[in-house]
């Protein structure tokens, strides 16, 4: 009986869709020959498509709900794959080995083009991890993250242009400038929370971009800075192919370094303070945490990573202009954090690969890329609002006690 009503509902949805899309999918006016074409076949396709999609959608929702009802059913089989992998520690090592072998061989198997894409994905991993400190851990919704990325990129671009300093010399400077701007932005917005903070940071991001676009004497305006040096390899300049491979490995090293740092931070005294701040600001202060310092440190550290990646970006593309630092960029990085799972390192890494690689390999459907992007996000929000990997906190073992549930779900 339930099946029947489901079918009825799906039928209704499909009729509704046929009605809605009728003007654009069925009627086509040919203004040259002055005739109207009726494409009835499209109507049929829309009807069938929406019926099937709606049916599958309902089925999934039902599955999800029945899954929620039997909570406490802790058997591994019923868990999403990703949680199962996390729980079964013995799977870690083989997975890590396979991943590292793949990572090392990658540039020698695949074309320069593929290696470039992978490098980009890794850059977003690092950007995502940086923003994860601000948004995922400290809970400060920052929509202007790309501003710090721009600061880093222009730090390298300008210093290299004017003084000829190389990548390695400027990398720390870029990180430092990022941090400085993080604090610089952090101060005025300390009192803001949630939506207000989001709007102000959004504005800040745009201001930086507009300054870069319009201050011709300083930043060369929309035409940007070209011929920026690639990273040197012990003072040698490499051929394009070798440089690509070199940059790829550099990026892997940077990503590993970032994972190491963020992992250490998030389970430290300061990392816990960030999470507490995210969870409840008033309680956090009342437990003796300095709100100002904690927020500023999160902002500054997040921005440090953006600054560093900015330098890297400038060195990789050898050309920068303000068009690379639009709001869309911030939005993508934020999506990576949200999709991956706020506050989870593995989640952010997976999120970055999904959101960067998928559109790259879906170029064939490039017209529908944005549509697909949106659909993935919506589906995620409905079925797994906590992100691919949900909130994980470190657990501790104690002698002589029977620990109740030693892993968090």
């Amino acid at each position, binding site marked *: 009986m339930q099946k029947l009503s489901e079918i009825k509902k799906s039928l209704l949805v499909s009729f509704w869709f046929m009605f809605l899309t009728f003007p654009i999918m069925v009627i086509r006016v040919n203004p040259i020959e002055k005739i109207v074409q009726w494409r009835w076949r499209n109507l049929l396709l829309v009807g069938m498509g929406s019926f099937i999609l709606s049916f599958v959608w309902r089925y999934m929702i039902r599955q999800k709900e029945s899954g929620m009802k039997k909570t406490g059913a802790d058997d591994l089989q019923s868990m999403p794959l990703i949680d199962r992998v996390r729980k079964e520690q013995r799977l870690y090592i083989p997975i890590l080995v396979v991943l590292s072998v793949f990572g090392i061989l990658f540039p020698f198997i695949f074309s320069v083009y593929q290696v470039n894409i992978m490098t980009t994905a890794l850059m977003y991993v690092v950007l995502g991890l940086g923003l994860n400190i601000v948004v995922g851990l400290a809970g400060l919704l920052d929509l202007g993250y790309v501003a710090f990325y721009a600061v880093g990129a222009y730090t390298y671009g300008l210093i290299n242009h004017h003084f000829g300093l190389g990548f390695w010399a400027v990398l720390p400077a870029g990180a430092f400038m990022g941090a400085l701007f993080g604090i610089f932005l952090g101060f005025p917005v300390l009192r803001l929370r949630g939506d207000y903070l989001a709007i102000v940071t959004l504005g800040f991001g745009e201001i930086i971009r507009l300054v870069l676009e319009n201050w011709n004497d300083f930043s060369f305006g929309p035409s940007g800075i070209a011929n920026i040096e690639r990273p040197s390899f012990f003072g040698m300049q490499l051929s394009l192919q070798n440089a690509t491979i070199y940059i790829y490995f550099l990026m892997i090293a940077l990503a590993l370094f970032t994972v190491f740092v963020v992992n250490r931070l998030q389970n430290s005294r300061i990392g816990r303070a960030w*999470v*507490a701040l995210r969870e*409840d600001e008033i309680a*956090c202060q009342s437990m003796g945490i300095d709100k100002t310092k904690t927020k500023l440190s999160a902002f500054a550290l997040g921005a440090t990573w953006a600054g560093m990646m900015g330098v890297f970006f400038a060195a990789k593309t050898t050309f920068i202009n303000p068009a690379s630092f639009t709001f869309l960029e911030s939005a993508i990085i934020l999506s990576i954090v949200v999709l991956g799972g706020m506050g989870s390192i593995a989640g952010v890494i997976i999120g970055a690969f999904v959101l960067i690689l998928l559109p790259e390999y879906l170029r064939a459907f490039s017209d529908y890329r944005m549509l697909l992007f949106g659909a993935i996000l919506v589906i995620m929000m409905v079925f797994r609002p906590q992100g691919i990997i949900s*909130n994980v906190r470190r657990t501790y073992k*104690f002698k002589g006690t029977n620990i109740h549930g030693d892993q968090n779900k």
Partner: protein
Amino acid sequence: MKRVMEIHGLTMDFGGLRAIDHLDLEVREREILALIGPNGAGKTTLFNCMTGIYTPSEGSMIISPPGKKPETIRGLKPNIVTRKGITRTFQNIRLFPNMTVLENVMIGRHCRTRSRIAGALFRGKTTIREEQATVEYSYHILEKIGLAKYVNDFAGILPYGAQRLLEIARALATEPFLLLLDEPAAGMNPQETGELDELISRIREEEKISILLIEHDMRFVMSISDRIAVMDYGKKIAEGTPEEIRSNQAVIKAYLGEEFVA
């Protein structure tokens, strides 16, 4: 008996509303002082003033922690007040729901530890030692409060009574000399309230601290407190031992209305 905190002429205005009106109150060493009063009397507002969440419009608040010089805490930020030794729990529970129970308590240790970002990155000997000490201290408190079985669970999924206890555990981790409890028994069943009674007395004995608590459950208040202060419309209308308060005319009037006064 020695006083650990003295409040004089404390007044708190919200626009036109005077939530606290020239209130005087003293807290003595190692006592359990209960603060009672009808809804909206200004009890929670007093806690907010004492912990730096609000800055009072007028009046003074002087603390004299055991073994330290007296000093004023008026105008200090909440985190500084906590470091000086006053901590609180909240009327509507304010835990960190997506952190584990142990981590919630570890947050309380924040103001008694010092490792910084560099320490976290390099994880030197001092940092590791401090981190271990934090974990052990926090776990020890959980054992004392009776929450050890929940250590690694998320705070948000604990039963209600356990959440209230966790707030107390978290507050104790800051090593206060004065603990403020805002309706700790609210929402607990009689058995849990009985256990809480015992727990609070035990905390006073073991930690050697003063406790100021707001509570509506009269039986609980009468059995646990050494002294009781009564507030109504922002003013203190009575103060004394439970026996004195029980027979105080002003208190009966405030609680039951004019017609019940003998």
